[in-house]
């Protein structure tokens, strides 16, 4: 068990390391940030001064090591725009984003999983077909199209809800629905196929054959086994709580992390972009780690294997 944990942690660390390196290489080598921040017609002395102030005139590997050291010390740099700590600039946007993504996650789970289970249990019924159609449509409909359609109907035509901004709960309704519906479709489709896979297993037939009531078969044999693959995709959804709303935040002018990322990328605000990249990677990796641990709890085969009991 400890060995398993250590391996997972090591992989997580390697992944974070790669993300840091990627961020550094891409963002540092792609252009001269000093020139871009200062503007093309800035006097050369000013650009030089900016460079030495930010350490941009050192060799790249020095910058890289310094960057690493800073991250380990918890210093993610300052926003080049207003000189505030990048981590603060990002952190103050997180609540806004979570205000969208957490209710959206609730919609995804509350709508997607029951729909998927129902569809699998009533295979080829009208409900199943409806769920599958909705799921495929939900995949094919990009969030900006769904969002704009909702705006067109509920804000422009009916005038029930505001089309953008952040001035109270009414403003969150359309973005949350946009995020939630798309994710619910994906989850429903996934749950359905996981459930169908399990329902086709011999142990389900065995349980039915020995007279276990169907309801009990579903509850204590099918659902726990179908939960195992479903947890993976839920883990991914939890991991993208912070970064999953880039497009939707842009559609609804919602001042969250995603909007900040698009603006920071446009301004070449390196520190902020790196900070968001790291934050996103860290949440994803942490969510994946939790999923791996949950596997152990959900799947007795893994538990047995680890206790040396064989599979």
């Amino acid at each position, binding site marked *: 068990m400890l060995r398993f944990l250590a391996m997972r942690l090591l992989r997580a660390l390697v*992944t974070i390391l790669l993300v840091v390196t990627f961020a550094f290489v891409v*963002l540092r080598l792609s252009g001269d940030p000093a020139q871009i921040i200062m503007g093309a017609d800035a006097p050369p002395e000013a650009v030089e001064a900016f460079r030495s102030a930010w350490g941009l005139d050192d060799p790249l590997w020095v910058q890289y090591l310094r960057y690493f050291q800073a991250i380990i010390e918890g210093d993610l740099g300052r926003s080049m725009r207003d000189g505030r700590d990048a981590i603060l600039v990002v952190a103050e946007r997180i609540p806004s984003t979570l205000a969208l993504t957490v209710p959206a996650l609730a919609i995804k789970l509350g709508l997607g999983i029951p729909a998927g289970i129902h569809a699998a249990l009533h295979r080829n019924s009208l409900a199943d077909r409806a769920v599958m159609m909705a799921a495929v449509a939900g*995949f094919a409909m*990009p*969030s900006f199209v769904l969002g704009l359609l909702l705006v067109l109907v509920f804000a*422009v035509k009916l005038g029930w809800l505001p089309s953008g901004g952040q001035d109270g709960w009414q403003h969150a309704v359309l973005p949350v629905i946009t995020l939630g519906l798309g994710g619910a479709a994906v989850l429903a489709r996934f749950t359905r196929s996981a459930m169908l*896979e399990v329902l086709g297993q011999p142990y389900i037939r065995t349980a039915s054959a020995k007279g276990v009531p169907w*309801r009990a078969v579903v509850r204590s044999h099918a659902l726990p086994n179908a939960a195992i693959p479903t947890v993976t995709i839920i883990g991914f959804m939890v991991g993208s709580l912070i970064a999953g709303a880039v497009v939707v935040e842009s559609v609804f002018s919602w001042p969250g992390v995603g909007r900040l990322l698009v603006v920071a990328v446009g301004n070449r605000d390196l520190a902020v972009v790196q900070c968001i990249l790291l934050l996103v990677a860290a949440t994803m990796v942490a969510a994946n780690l939790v999923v791996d641990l949950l596997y152990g709890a959900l799947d007795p085969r893994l538990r047995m294997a680890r206790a040396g009991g064989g599979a």
Partner: protein
Amino acid sequence: MSDVPMPRAGLAAAPKAWRGPPPLVLFALTWVGLMLAVALLADLVSPYAYTALHLRNRLSPPAFAGGSWAHLLGTDELGRDVLSRLIASIRMSLLIAFGATLIGAAVGTAVGFLAAHFRGWVEQCVLALVDFSASLPFLILALAVLAFFGNSLALFVVLLGFHAWERYARIARGLAISAGTQGYAAAVRQLGATPWRIYGRHVLPNIASTLIISMTLAFPEVILLESGLSFLGLGVQPPATSLGNMVGYGREYLTGAPWILLAPASVVVLTTLSVSILGDWLRDRLDPTLR
């Protein structure tokens, strides 16, 4: 909860006589065929040049909503014909999606073969990269790379090509390793074939169907990514136009001229829908192991 019924007899679904593709698949095939034809014949079927301005005829509604038949789908804020722009956008978006899908498949398969051939630390590196790719939402990576490297069409296509490379790499590695244990690969190796020949002429054709299905499944994702990035203003840049780009600009006129946005939006939805229906159908018929 007695409403939970027993599954119908025969969970494995009794094999039925095949009566041709279901209607939905036929519709998908027709739509994809239409889109390909439009993309190939763009210059012939386009009523106007997609950049041609007609300033006295700005924001005229589509023909079926009271506009003139001269502009079937209406005109935009500069009096450009929406239908012509739509056709140019379809060509651009499909071209990008094809290019990117091919690049992704080629890169991923090559990397997967490398991992399968060398094993050891090469394989570990590849797997670490796969982990890395899977750990970040691709949109975030793409956003960073695009805006920082500036934007050119070639770079954009290559960047989108890296979407889903890890999926091909994983598939190619797994299949190549299992092919290596099968007789045919061992036989040609014993005959002295070079790795190039083994992987190119013997392993690749054997796993091609799986790869092609994966490409069909990844293609709509690339269209969605392209249109998403272009919508954010970070993909295809004007004067070139793509479906996402049209939606992004049409958004400004959502209230007064929704047709500018609705035409490309419905093409995006119908195209991704059709290609994924086809992909699912192909997978179910040809390669159930991919599920």
